[in-house]
Structure formats: structure tokens, C-alpha cells
């Protein structure tokens, strides 16, 4: 799990943790916590190259219902990171078609100029390349490159000293 996602999950837990919930409604904090646990379980499984265990942990998190209290963009980010991890696991396991499917499922959650969409484009490019679809793989890599370039510009813009009067 990326440091960025870990920070985001902490922030999300803090933001929605106190939200009032109906007793029967799924808790947003619980959902986010489960996603975080799935990433941690996948990390452990990947470390011992147990692709099946990694896949199961991430897939269970993916299949959980998203609570209504979770905002659209937060939902996208959490689910895109799960789909990206699943695609990476499938690529490691040599299952390029499954990797492609996960990358596409993740991209169907929406698109933004951020690391989550960029990662999915790279994963889809790798899957397509493995399947021999080189031209579309190059297109995915190029779109991911453009996103990373925009993120680099943003990094410098945010770090720029404030302008004088």
C-alpha cells in the first residue's frame, strides 16, 4: 500500500469515523479499515509470493458494499487502489487477462489526474503488452506519463514560495 494511500485512509477514518450511522448501516470507518487490512494482508502474502492469498484478501475488500457515507471521490480512490493491487497480483501470477480486467474495473470507477488513475493505466498497459496489444499499451503508458508530468508540475507549484505583493 502506498504511503499516500495510507495517509488518505487515516484521514478518511478521521473524517467519517464520527459520522452518525444507523445501527444497521455499514460503517464507513469499518469499510475503510477493512480495505486497509486487505492491503496489509496482501503485502504479507506478496512477500511470500502467495498470489492466491493476496488475491483473496483484496477481492474480499473489493466485493464489500460501499457505505453511503463515503464520498464519491473517496470511494473511487479506495477502490482504484484495490483494483490496482489486484491487477499487480495477477501480473505477478502471470494472469495478464485477469490483470487487464481488474485494471479496467478500476478505471470504470472514474478518472482523475492522480496517482491512482495513473497506476491503473500503467497496470493496464503492462497487461495489454503481455497480451500482445502493444499499440494500446503504448497509449496507456503515454496517458500515465502525462498524469505523472502533471503531478510533477503540481509538486513544484505547491512547493513554490509565496509570491510577493
Amino acid at each position, binding site marked *: 500500500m502506498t504511503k499516500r494511500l495510507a495517509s488518505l485512509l487515516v484521514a478518511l477514518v478521521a473524517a467519517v469515523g464520527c459520522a452518525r450511522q444507523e445501527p444497521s448501516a455499514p460503517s464507513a470507518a469499518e469499510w475503510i479499515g477493512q480495505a486497509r487490512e486487505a492491503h496489509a494482508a496482501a503485502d504479507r502474502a506478496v512477500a511470500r509470493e502467495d498470489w492466491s492469498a493476496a488475491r483473496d484478501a483484496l477481492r474480499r475488500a473489493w466485493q464489500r458494499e460501499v457505505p453511503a457515507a463515503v464520498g464519491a471521490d473517496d470511494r473511487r480512490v479506495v477502490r482504484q487502489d484495490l483494483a490496482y493491487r489486484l491487477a499487480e497480483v495477477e501480473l505477478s501470477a502471470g494472469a495478464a487477462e485477469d490483470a487487464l480486467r481488474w485494471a479496467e474495473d478500476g478505471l470504470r470507477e472514474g478518472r482523475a489526474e492522480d496517482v491512482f488513475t495513473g497506476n491503473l493505466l500503467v497496470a493496464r498497459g503492462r497487461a495489454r503488452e503481455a497480451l500482445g496489444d502493444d499499440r494500446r499499451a503504448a497509449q496507456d503508458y503515454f496517458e500515465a*506519463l502525462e498524469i505523472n508530468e502533471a503531478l510533477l508540475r503540481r*509538486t513544484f507549484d505547491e512547493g513554490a514560495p509565496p509570491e510577493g505583493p
Partner: protein
Amino acid sequence: MTRPIALLPILLAAGCGAAGAPAAGTTASEQAVPAVVEPTAEEEQLVSGYETDVETLEADLLSSFELAEGPDCDQAGELRDRICDLSERICAIADRHPGWSDVEGKCGDGRERCERARDEVAERCGEADR
């Protein structure tokens, strides 16, 4: 260099305290119009030493602010590496398919963007990050 920065408030407080505190053995009216007293050679030497300290501390303080407001160079370095890695992936595909002008175009474009990212990170974060 953190020690001089930590000393700055102490020096400032000491300086302010000295300026505001009434000297022992003076009345309120005497304090209102301070007498001009010539410093001794020893005091002049002391003041000169403090001036050097203050200049050093001021430079340290300014550089601390510059660092705090600067870009996140670790992140910038990671993004530059990703841009360059992706451009090389595209070029590897172009090399495998010599007639694909669209991919060749993306390869050239990607390499230019990689170079720009390298230059920008080097310029903003220093040559060591190149």
C-alpha cells in the same frame, strides 16, 4: 545546524529583557531619559561578537524558511523516474514495431518530457537529484 536556531529566541529574549528592564539603582525619571554611556573596550568586543552571532543566526533562519517552503524533492524525484520509465517502455514498443509512426511519435515526445522533468528536478532540487 539546529543549535544556533534554538539559541535565537534566548538571545532575542535576553536582548529585549535587557532593553526593557530598569537598571538597578535608578529612579523612574532617570529611566525615562537614558544616559549615554560610552562602552568599554571589553563591552565593544562583546557586542561585536553578538553581531556576528546574530548575522549567522539570521542566515540560518532564512535558509530554514526557504527549506520549509521548497518543493517535495523526494516526490519530485519519484515522479521524474516514473516519467522516464514510461517513456522508455513506449520506446521499447516503438523499437519492436519499426513502422508504427504513432508509437514512434509518443516515444520521442516521452523522451523530451523525461529530459524536461530531469532538468526541472535538477534545477529545483539540485544536481544531486538528477
